[in-house]
């Protein structure tokens, strides 16, 4: 039991990190699409930022659990270098790339006011890739990929993200109008 504690920390941290990243993406899409009218943009933006930051924290917990688990023996190379892992190299690499993209999105968001808006937006769009790669990593590399509850959760959340993305793409005027609102809220906050 004690030997497996870090293994549970790694798995649980990974699942919570994925859920928080998915929520951050959904909150960001809500900010740009305003599918739900009621919440104020400032509130949505604040929570969107917080969820992204919390996702990074739990990715750290995930990595810590993997590093301290004695059974799988993941070192810095396996944790930070894509395809360095002997265990499912491609599936693990998806998670490594997703982690780097998540960190890039978070860092550029923190430095948003000090960098061109176009670069920030380009990096921010990779959050879609973070969600897709993270979901594939959880389903393919993780022990819980065969868990029916996790599979259904991934399916439902992916459906929500896909629907909101389609709304954003197909309703550009509405998204553009709300984007300016979000930008105003961002510069104010």
């Amino acid at each position, binding site marked *: 039991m004690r030997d497996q504690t870090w293994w549970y920390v790694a798995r649980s941290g990974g699942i*919570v990190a994925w859920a928080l990243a998915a929520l951050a993406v959904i909150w960001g899409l809500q900010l740009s699409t305003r599918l739900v009218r009621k919440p104020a943009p400032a509130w949505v933006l604040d929570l969107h930022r*917080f969820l992204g930051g919390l996702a990074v924290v739990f990715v750290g917990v995930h990595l810590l659990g993997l590093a301290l688990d004695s059974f799988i023996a993941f070192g810095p190379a396996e944790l930070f270098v894509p395809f360095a892992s002997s265990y499912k190299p491609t599936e693990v690499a998806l998670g490594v790339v997703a982690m780097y993209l998540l960190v890039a999105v978070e860092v550029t968001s923190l430095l948003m006011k000090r960098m061109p808006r176009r670069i920030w937006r380009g990096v921010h769009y990779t959050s879609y890739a973070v969600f897709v790669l993270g979901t594939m990593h959880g389903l393919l590399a993780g022990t819980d990929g065969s868990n029916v509850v996790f599979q259904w959760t991934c399916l439902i959340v992916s459906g929500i993200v896909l629907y909101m993305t389609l709304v954003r793409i197909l309703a550009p005027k509405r998204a553009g109008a709300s984007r300016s609102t979000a930008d105003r809220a961002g510069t104010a906050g």
Partner: protein
Amino acid sequence: MTDRMQDLSPQGLSPEERIKRLQERRAGSSATPRARRRHPAAKSRALFAGLALASFGLVGASMAATQAISTSTVAAPAPVVQAAAPAVTSTPVPSSKATTPAPAATRSAPVTSTRGS
């Protein structure tokens, strides 16, 4: 206003000291609203942080419980297999093979009896 005039009055203050005081005043005036400013979703932040921590613990605990249950159910058939051992040993087996350990004999008793030695 009168305070400001008194602070910035040249009486007894060197230009450097006045500039320093003015900078301190400006820094203080800009820091105060920032310190007072609250996040629009402060309560929701706390709620989501709590939910994330709780789900982290719950998911980990459920994994450990599932593992413990599966381990106990795997360990449970062992007595049944051991109980079947006398039936295996009761089959006509040469006396030289009766010295083999019970678990190995029960797991592969038919195989060893056919393979011989």
